[in-house]
């Protein structure tokens, strides 16, 4: 068995090594900047789920920079491309809080991306930050979704507002907002059931949840966070567009970056929707949430960063 283990490990590190080496080869193994180099860069981007169009555009911009800056050393290119990517991703962006009264955060996304887990982590983060937080079990549909959130509530010592399974999510949202108003709470984070963006009825339900919140506290929700799974390919673009249209997304949480997927699709999303990425998920534990740092993400795309 031992042999089998080490063989497997070898196999895996080889995959990763191959990838990193391959990327480094692109830049360092060459004497000059040529067509092949650009092609390989494009390949690296596509393999990180950046998408064909965005990859092409980025490489085009890189060409321009090379001309303008009169670069000739391939070694200088990684940094330039990372700069371009970070630029595309914009400034670091944090949560928006209500000017006064409780801040309502609504969390949305397709099935299984990590909404409930992210809420558990975020509640913990904000509580540590000295905020009074409650969570609302707005997923009344999925089996044991309420129980799942309650476990997170126990972990971080955060109260959960809930109704029974099958209840109207808008009614739960109403309860949550009421609780926030009457109990002097700083932040309410509302969970929702996973829903595919092409399901009209379920998307309509989200609109209703938002309407109820806005009626009780004008301007609420103050943040609508769309959770995206980094393993997702180009469909994430569609997710971002439709959730933005229906729910007015204000920020993205990119989860599961502890895997081997790179989540490059957020570059294309940036280009098309300008929704900032605000947080990343890097594991299943309570501490595995980090603010999104564009520069770190850009370098992680090229496998050169240890940070993500």
């Amino acid at each position, binding site marked *: 068995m031992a042999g089998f*283990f080490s063989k497997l*490990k070898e196999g895996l590190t080889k995959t990763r090594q191959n990838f990193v080496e391959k990327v480094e080869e692109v830049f360092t193994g060459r004497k000059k900047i040529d067509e092949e180099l650009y092609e390989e860069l494009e390949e690296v981007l*596509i393999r990180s789920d950046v998408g064909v169009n965005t990859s092409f555009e980025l490489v085009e911009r890189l060409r321009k920079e090379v001309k303008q800056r009169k670069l000739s050393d391939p070694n200088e290119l990684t940094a330039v491309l990372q700069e371009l990517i970070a630029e595309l991703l914009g400034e670091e962006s944090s949560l928006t809080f209500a000017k006064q009264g409780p801040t309502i955060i609504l969390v949305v996304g*397709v099935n299984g991306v990590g909404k409930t887990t992210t809420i558990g982590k975020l509640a913990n983060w904000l509580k540590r930050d000295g905020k009074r937080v409650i969570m609302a079990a707005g997923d009344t*549909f999925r089996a044991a979704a309420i129980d*799942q959130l*309650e476990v997170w509530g126990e972990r971080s010592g955060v109260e959960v507002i809930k109704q029974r399974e099958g209840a109207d999510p808008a009614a739960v949202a109403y309860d949550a907002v009421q609780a926030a108003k009457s109990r002097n709470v700083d932040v309410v984070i509302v969970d929702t059931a996973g829903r*595919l963006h092409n399901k009209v009825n379920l998307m309509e339900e989200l609109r209703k949840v938002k309407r109820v919140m806005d009626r009780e506290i004008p301007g609420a929700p103050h943040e609508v966070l769309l959770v995206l799974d980094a*393993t997702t390919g180009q469909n994430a673009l569609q997710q971002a567009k439709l959730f933005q249209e229906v729910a007015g997304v204000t920020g993205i949480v990119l989860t599961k970056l502890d895997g*081997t997927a790179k989540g490059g699709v957020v570059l294309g999303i940036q280009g098309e929707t300008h929704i900032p990425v605000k947080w990343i998920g890097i594991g299943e534990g309570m501490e595995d949430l980090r603010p999104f740092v564009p520069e770190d993400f850009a370098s992680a795309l090229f496998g050169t960063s240890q940070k993500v």
Partner: protein
Amino acid sequence: MFQGLSEKLQETFKRLKGKGKLKEADVSEAMREVRVALLEADVNFKVVKDFVAKVKERSIGQEVLESLSPAQHVIKIVHEEMIELMGGATGKILIASKPPTVIMLIGLQGAGKTTHAAKLANMLKKQGKHPLLVACDIYRPAAIKQLQVLGDQLKVPVFSMGQDNPRDIAKASIVHANQNGQDVVIIDTAGRLHINEELMGELRDIKSSVKPHEILLVVDAMTGQDAVNVAESFHSDLGLDGVILTKLDGDTRGGAALSIKAVTGCTIKFVGIGEKMDAIESFHPDRMASRILGMGDVLTLIEKA
């Protein structure tokens, strides 16, 4: 983008007058468009490379069918090759000669394992079997409860031993099944990363203790370029018997289907098409090929030709 593909191909071939044979230059141009379409559908970069090379080779020199334009003819070849690649036995759980048949579901976090364990139980129950669901996810908050709720809905018993060792739970479940006349055991496992050595070891332990007849990898149809890494790791580590592709009720092209089959050779047995307990179907390579290409209408026309 994809209506785009057929339009672009028509465009590409507009300059081509008459029929005759497909020439290399024309085919190359068409292949550039096909390549982009496949990549946009999340087919893995390397798989696309190999696939396009193969299609190109087959296309050059072919006599264009009387009823088709050259563009349509190339698409026809692409489509056929895809079906060929994704084909093979589908949609069956092999029932062991000596019960219980043991099925184990594995995969990344949130892929749909628990839901599909229950869907499979439902399907097999309708076929006259007596399934037992086994809760081996001891990590995810309320994972056991989730399986119990689904089991209750379906009136299928659920075997659990709290946060005990998953290997022991799996082993005890077989004894339990034998004692209670349950002829199919479906083991739900915790979601895990393919690079998590410790948790992959746990799966190997379960495997060696219960010797499953079917180890099925559950994969989210929305998965991007990483699908091949994931499938390859799980396959080399556990030896997969098949794949369940979930969440196909979305609007993803689902290129992962092509990638996974190409890289592991494992057939996709079932697809998940919703959250409800009856939202499971056998896999159809032809439908999947049309979906990846995103040209249902064009293809229907071509198929008639």
